[in-house]
């Protein structure tokens, strides 16, 4: 019967769709740990899934359909995580072709088949150590095979993809802009940072959590600043904050983009319009690397570094809940479904 076939097809489509994304709509927070990723439900603030994974998690990339999260670990593995099934479905190693590579900086290309990494490489030949030149390279997500590369100065530690992947920003001592549109990758511009006394540890940028704005803090001798990179336009807003610098590893934007939250030993609220600090509270559990915020802006999550995740009320800055995680952590990412 035609109507039966139609009903069964519709049912199959619904079931496939349910399997591909988490059952309940809302926020999921992904605690990036060691040998594990833990999933926290944004409504109940409870751990709802454990995802075993090989290695120390570092950087992630979210596919455009929000069905898969690519997770870089141990600075040379890339795992594909199915966010519906909460499990690793594929793994590649970028150390291949006789080279031992270390990847500091990882972004997905919009084509869905490739990614870019910033690599340091080494190998031995007849007992001699050969050190490769530092490069930013495009590689296949299915095999880890490098497709093309461009030499960059030493010290690149983070990549941000802008203008639909047509340009890659490589953050190191300076900011290097790489044009990806030709047959070869081309370093087209260097924006000085080192000579301006800017120091940054740009391991955290929260680009997809912020809705397409990468947020990274930096320091000079006198002040803390924020670099906000608009991924669509490639524009960079440099916000110099007034007052004694707040020490922070990472900074995330509030959903209304009027405030930002910074974290290290303290949770600090930043007024982006007035370019100053609004409030700061110590984190009782100690230093945290990662910070995130619920999509309604009502709760702030801090965690990583050590093995705790603390949920704060964004209005009062009072802790609401402390979760003991299975491992220490590197970061905390939010994905809305």
């Amino acid at each position: 019967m035609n109507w039966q076939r139609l009903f069964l097809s519709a049912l199959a489509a619904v079931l496939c769709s349910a399997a591909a994304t988490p059952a309940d709509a809302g926020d999921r927070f992904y605690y990036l740990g060691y040998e594990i990723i833990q999933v926290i439900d944004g409504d109940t603030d409870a751990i709802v899934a454990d995802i075993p994974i090989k290695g120390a998690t570092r950087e992630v990339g979210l596919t455009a359909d929000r069905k898969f999260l690519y997770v870089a670990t141990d600075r040379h593995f890339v795992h594909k995580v199915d966010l519906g099934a909460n499990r690793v479905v594929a793994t590649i190693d970028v150390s291949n072709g006789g080279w031992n590579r270390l990847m500091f900086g990882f972004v997905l290309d919009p084509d869905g088949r490739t990614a870019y990494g910033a690599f340091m490489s080494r190998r031995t030949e007849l007992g001699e150590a050969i050190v490769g030149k530092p490069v930013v390279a495009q590689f296949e997500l299915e095999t880890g095979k490098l497709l093309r590369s461009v030499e960059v100065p030493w010290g690149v530690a983070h990549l941000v993809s802008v203008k639909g992947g047509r340009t890659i920003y490589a953050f190191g001592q300076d900011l290097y802009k790489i044009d990806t549109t030709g047959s070869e990758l081309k370093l087209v511009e260097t924006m000085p940072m080192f000579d301006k006394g800017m120091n940054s540890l740009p391991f955290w940028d929260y680009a997809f959590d912020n809705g397409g704005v990468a947020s990274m803090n930096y320091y000079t001798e006198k002040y803390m600043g924020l670099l906000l990179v608009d991924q669509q336009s490639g524009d960079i807003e440099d916000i110099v904050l007034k007052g004694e610098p707040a020490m922070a590893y990472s900074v995330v934007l509030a959903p209304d983009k009027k405030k930002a939250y910074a974290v290290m030993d303290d949770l600090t609220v930043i007024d982006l319009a007035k370019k100053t600090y609004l409030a700061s509270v110590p984190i009782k559990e100690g230093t945290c690397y990662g910070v995130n915020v619920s999509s309604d802006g009502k709760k702030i999550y801090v965690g990583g570094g050590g093995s705790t995740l603390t949920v704060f009320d964004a209005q009062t800055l009072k802790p609401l809940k402390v979760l003991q995680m299975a491992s220490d952590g590197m970061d905390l990412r939010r994905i809305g479904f």
Partner: protein
Amino acid sequence: MKKKTIEALNRKAKAIERLAEGEQKTAEALATRPMPQGCTTIFDTGWETNPRPTYPIGNCMASVRDFNGCAGDCWWPAQMPDGLTNHRDFDVACPNIARDWRNLKYD
């Protein structure tokens, strides 16, 4: 003019002073240079400074919360297992340092 704290007394010492006439300083103590604050991706440990004059003197508290992040990534191979080369799987035994530190084994 700044008063000299050491004076040449004999002929040999005066000859050395003449050799040094017009010489400009070639080195500068790091402590006198303006240094930015915070952690760094730059392979230069002197670059990492902390503006706080009081506790915590280090950048992280407790330092154990910084252990796994520093192994490999932050380049303190004397203090941490070198997670990039020699101890690549140490986090398997110690995913939570505060709980698992007894499993740490250094060569």
